């Protein structure tokens, strides 16, 4: 093979793409259609609860175009981090969507599903053997954190995908995967340079976000050759420029020059970006440095645990006398909540006041000076309670809200009520709350060890294991 051509239709499966771009990409005869379907960005809830952050109908729309187009051309479709987080429930959700498409369009194909959920016992066993280490700056893993995690996923590299391709899979649905793996696997299997293949995958992973104007819902095309790769958007209104592609290499990375992943490190110290044509960019010099022979291959583990249930109340104020002493009022309301529910262990619930207009957005950094010296005309206030049950969260949030509504602060002249509520009811049950509990590296003997592959024959909606 002289070159390998890869179509990335969209930044995240379900974010969509224009059919015109997709057709233009197909006309360039891609060897594979690959898409990343997930991220940890939307926070711990989705991994913890097993629910997808992408919409089912939107995911189905994208796959309903991708699968028949690929089957017609006899090229594989590869989906990584199915269902947004790649736990078994997410993967199953995606399999069911594909089964529906097979039925509705009368399609027959060989499907590989690659699971990435790892058993708690396996994590504990490896911990005991000293094979699990925190990914700095995550804290050390404890038995308690593992036990509390609802599901733990491991991030696969290219190896399980290569295995599934070797088994003849036409559609591959994988659990949690290193983002570039879906794009790089076919190229690595065909013997192309892994450094270039993975770097290209890192950029294709976000589709047209690396073009200008950028878009998360448009296609990007990659062509990998012996010593370089070319990136180009499909929509005539977009261009890849050396700046747009190089800037994307920075995105969401700790260090843009050294990018660790499964089995080694991507080293971009010698990488060059050159404008190839008006709308395409050539990248050279990216190197993959495999882990030294005396070190083990590592996979990344991710897990989330439930910490309670949440209720929130939205309110606002436009009273300058109240705004001036908001900190003091919040402390007063907290004290009232504490004394009213003194039979509850203080640690059993969490109460927070997010004061938008005054250090709301940046509240994670303590001690920052206010962004402006001027007193804001209005403040938005979100009262949040998290407690072991939904009903306790409702109680704490409701009490804090009614206390704040009628709180008699110093100099108060608006005595009918302190808060403007935009909604009735004022309080919203937000359900289960999760936090990340596992973000660690684990040594493995075999890159495919924790990623079992199931091959199925799907014929018009009937899927049977081979």
């Amino acid at each position, binding site marked *: 093979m002289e070159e390998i051509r890869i179509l990335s239709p969209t930044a995240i499966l379900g974010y969509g793409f224009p059919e015109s771009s997709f057709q233009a990409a197909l006309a360039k005869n891609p060897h594979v259609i690959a898409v990343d379907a997930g991220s*940890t*960005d939307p926070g711990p809830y989705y991994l913890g609860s097993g629910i997808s952050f992408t919409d089912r109908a939107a995911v189905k729309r994208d796959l309903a175009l991708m699968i028949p187009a690929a089957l017609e051309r006899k090229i594989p479709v590869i989906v990584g981090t199915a269902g947004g987080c790649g736990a078994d429930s997410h993967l199953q959700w995606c399999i069911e969507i594909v089964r529906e498409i097979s039925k509705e369009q009368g399609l027959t194909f060989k499907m590989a599903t690659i699971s990435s959920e790892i058993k708690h016992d396996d994590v504990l066993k490896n911990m005991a053997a000293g094979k699990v280490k925190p990914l700095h700056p995550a804290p050390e893993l404890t038995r308690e954190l593992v036990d509390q995690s609802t599901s733990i996923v491991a991030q696969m590299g290219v190896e399980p995908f290569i295995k599934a391709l070797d088994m003849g899979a036409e559609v591959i649905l994988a659990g949690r995967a290193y983002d570039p793996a879906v794009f790089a696997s076919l190229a690595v299997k065909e013997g192309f340079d892994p450094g270039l293949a993975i770097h290209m995958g890192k950029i294709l992973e976000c589709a047209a976000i690396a073009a200008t104007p950028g878009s998360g819902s448009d296609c990007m095309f990659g062509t990998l050759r012996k010593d370089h790769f070319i990136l180009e958007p499909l929509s005539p209104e977009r261009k890849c420029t*050396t700046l747009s592609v190089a800037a994307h290499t920075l*995105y969401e990375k700790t260090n843009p020059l050294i990018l660790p992943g499964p089995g080694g490190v991507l080293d971009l110290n010698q990488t060059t970006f050159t404008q190839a044509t008006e709308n395409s960019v050539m990248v050279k010099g990216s190197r993959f440095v495999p882990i030294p022979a005396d070190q083990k291959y590592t996979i990344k583990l991710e897990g989330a645990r439930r910490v309670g249930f949440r209720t929130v109340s939205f309110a606002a104020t436009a009273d300058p006398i109240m705004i001036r002493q908001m900190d003091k009022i919040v402390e007063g309301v907290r004290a009232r909540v504490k004394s009213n529910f003194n039979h509850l262990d203080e640690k059993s619930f969490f109460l*927070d006041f997010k004061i938008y207009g005054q250090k709301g957005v*940046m509240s*994670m*950094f303590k001690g920052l000076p206010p962004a402006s010296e001027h007193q804001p005309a209005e403040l938005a206030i979100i009262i949040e309670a998290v407690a072991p049950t939904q009903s306790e969260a409702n109680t704490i949030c409701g009490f804090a809200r009614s206390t704040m509504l009628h709180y008699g602060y110093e100099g108060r002249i608006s005595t009918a009520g302190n808060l403007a509520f935009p909604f009735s009811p004022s309080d919203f049950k937000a359900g289960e709350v999760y936090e990340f509990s596992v973000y660690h590296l684990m040594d493995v003997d075999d890159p495919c060890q924790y990623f079992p592959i199931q091959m199925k024959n799907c014929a018009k909606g009937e899927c049977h294991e081979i």
Partner: protein
Amino acid sequence: MKYKLIELADVIRSKNSGPYEITFDIIFKEETMFQKAAASGVFNKKLFADLYHLKEEDVISVVNFPPAKAIKATIVRPMASGNLGEADVYGAQQHGPMLGIEFEM
């Protein structure tokens, strides 16, 4: 001469790099200004530690990336993304303090 970063940069942004870090990107408009700023030593760990009231050891790295005319800094997130007390799950609105950077070169 005194410069305002906001006048020299095309992009000033923040984003999570995984749940336990926040990373800042400054992409300069002009190659010459990027080279000057990178060589000046102004963009160091202390600058980011001061801007965000952090200990210097919590600034993981400050790196120049010439292909993008960019300087990039990564810090330890004060809390893991989505932990109780969170106000910006994606970490995409933590760039504010950088907009006020002024420096002599």
